[in-house]
């Protein structure tokens, strides 16, 4: 197995880009990542493009080929990936696998979404899914976890709201974040209820956005001081056990364990985490799956400030999905862009001091109370 590095990262503001097409957003992120990598585009011999809604909203197909051709990458293998909210990070995993196997020297990964369009409504897990037909929308699937977490562990509304307060505060220091204004605990608690007990600021906002990475195999980088090593990048899917435990999330726990095992690391090795805080309760459950605290203790962990910038193990210093916004397929790539910036020491106001090891965790779509996809990547400087 060859070592794999991130040598270039690019991201555009996560916002409403009404005048730009999905291709426009993607090309700009890809351009930044290649420029950042310092290599000429034709050396990049493979490409992975992720979008969830391009086909559904715009009739797009083989968009990756369009985007990569626009930045001078052609001829090699290119695939277009969809894996719900974990689409971008699934693309990263495929690129990582190909490079670690020596099947490619340089790969580009772009995750992009344009979803601020009229009438999109709440996302679901596919219109032909039985749960969708019975009224499941994504916020509800997390609200059900929240209700159960409160019931079993005494997690409070205030503890959950603290996740929003923290991530919005972090986002205020991130120039590409969707939300640049912090919120108070009272504002979070008193906001309109989306699905009990999650108020609007506890649900990540839709956004348009794109993020890109250039990956290189260890044999292809030479003396690149800004290269960041990928120690592990795992992709899993749900096990759909019945009865499913909504709070001791088997898929989440298994995926984190697998990544730690592959990287030869554990939670104590981490300096920062980007996790899939699609909803406040999700971040709390992910703390527990990641081993940042015991199961049931996630609410207290955020409330005591351990996961804030400056705390014991900062989580989502980028603002997370709640603060940075959630252009679905861009998110998993954006998380790694953030970890790379942190490990390079280039994160400016939101820099985690002395960050050496970071983890990015992403999940996608629901089925029978489980996630359909989960990715965990561990990177080090």
């Amino acid at each position, binding site marked *: 197995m060859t070592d794999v590095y991130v040598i270039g990262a690019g991201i555009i503001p996560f916002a409403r880009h009404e005048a730009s097409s999905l291709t426009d957003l993607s090309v700009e992120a890809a351009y930044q990542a290649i420029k950042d990598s310092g290599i000429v585009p034709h050396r990049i011999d493979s490409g992975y493009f992720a979008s969830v809604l391009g086909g559904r909203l715009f009739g797009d197909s083989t968009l990756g080929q369009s985007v990569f051709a626009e930045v001078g990458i052609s001829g090699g293998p290119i695939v277009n990936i969809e894996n719900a909210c974990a689409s971008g990070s699934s693309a990263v995993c495929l690129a990582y696998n190909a490079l670690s196997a020596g099947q490619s020297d340089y790969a580009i990964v772009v995750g992009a979404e344009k979803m601020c369009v009229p009438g999109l409504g709440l996302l679901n897990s596919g219109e032909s899914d*039985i749960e969708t037909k019975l009224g499941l929308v994504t916020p509800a699937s997390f609200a059900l976890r929240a209700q*159960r977490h409160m019931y079993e562990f005494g997690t409070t509304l205030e503890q959950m709201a603290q996740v929003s307060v923290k991530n919005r505060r972090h986002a205020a220091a991130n120039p590409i974040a969707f939300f640049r204004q912090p919120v108070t605990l009272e504002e979070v608690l008193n906001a309109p209820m*989306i699905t009990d007990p999650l108020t609007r600021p506890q649900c990540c906002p839709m956004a348009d956005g794109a993020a890109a990475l250039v990956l290189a195999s260890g044999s292809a980088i030479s003396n690149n001081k800004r290269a960041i090593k990928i120690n592990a990048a795992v992709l899993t899917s749900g096990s759909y056990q019945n*009865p499913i435990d909504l709070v001791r999330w088997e898929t989440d726990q298994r995926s984190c364990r697998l990544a730690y095992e592959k990287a030869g690391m554990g939670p104590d090795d981490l300096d920062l985490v980007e996790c899939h805080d699609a909803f406040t309760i999700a971040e709390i459950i992910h703390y527990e799956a990641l081993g940042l605290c015991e199961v049931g203790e996630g609410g207290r962990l955020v409330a005591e400030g351990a996961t804030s910038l400056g705390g014991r193990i900062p989580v989502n210093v980028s603002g997370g999905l709640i603060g940075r916004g959630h252009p679905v397929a861009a998110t998993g790539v954006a998380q790694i862009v953030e970890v790379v910036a942190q490990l390079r020491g280039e994160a400016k106001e939101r820099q985690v001091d002395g960050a050496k090891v970071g983890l990015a965790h992403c999940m996608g779509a629901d089925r*029978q109370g489980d996630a359909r996809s989960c990715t965990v990547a561990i990177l080090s400087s």
Partner: protein
Amino acid sequence: MPARLKENTAPEAGATELLPPVQEGIFSLPAAGETGGPRLMGGYCRACERYHFPRERHCHRCLGPVEAADLGDSGVIYSFTAVRAKPPLGLPQPYAVGFVDLAANGLRVFALLDPDCVDHFKIGAPVILAVKPLGHDGKGRPCLRPYFTLQQHPAESEA
């Protein structure tokens, strides 16, 4: 008409028995003249002795044949939530969903909950299956949906 088989009062919904279910085979209705309410229908693999909902085409464990199985009509709430945002599929605003632990076999199934009881659900509360026209099928056509309602209706418990 059994108590748990209510007809929607909306004129466009039509008679309950004429409406299609949101998905074939997920519940059964009592035949004309029969007593009792609707039953949740799933599948069963004899080889694996496994029940499942909805019915699998092939057993997920052994790929063997599955037969239709009556999963009963009652359970207790494992978790629930009220969706207060703009509802999909023509469902009421607010409406409620949850996971129900079925009394008959311990399966934990995702379910619609009675939109008339949105503010009265509790984890652990006993619920019973009902069927009525609720929302549309995604193409605007009304359809029957199964949902669980409280065994003890809040109005009754207050009385």
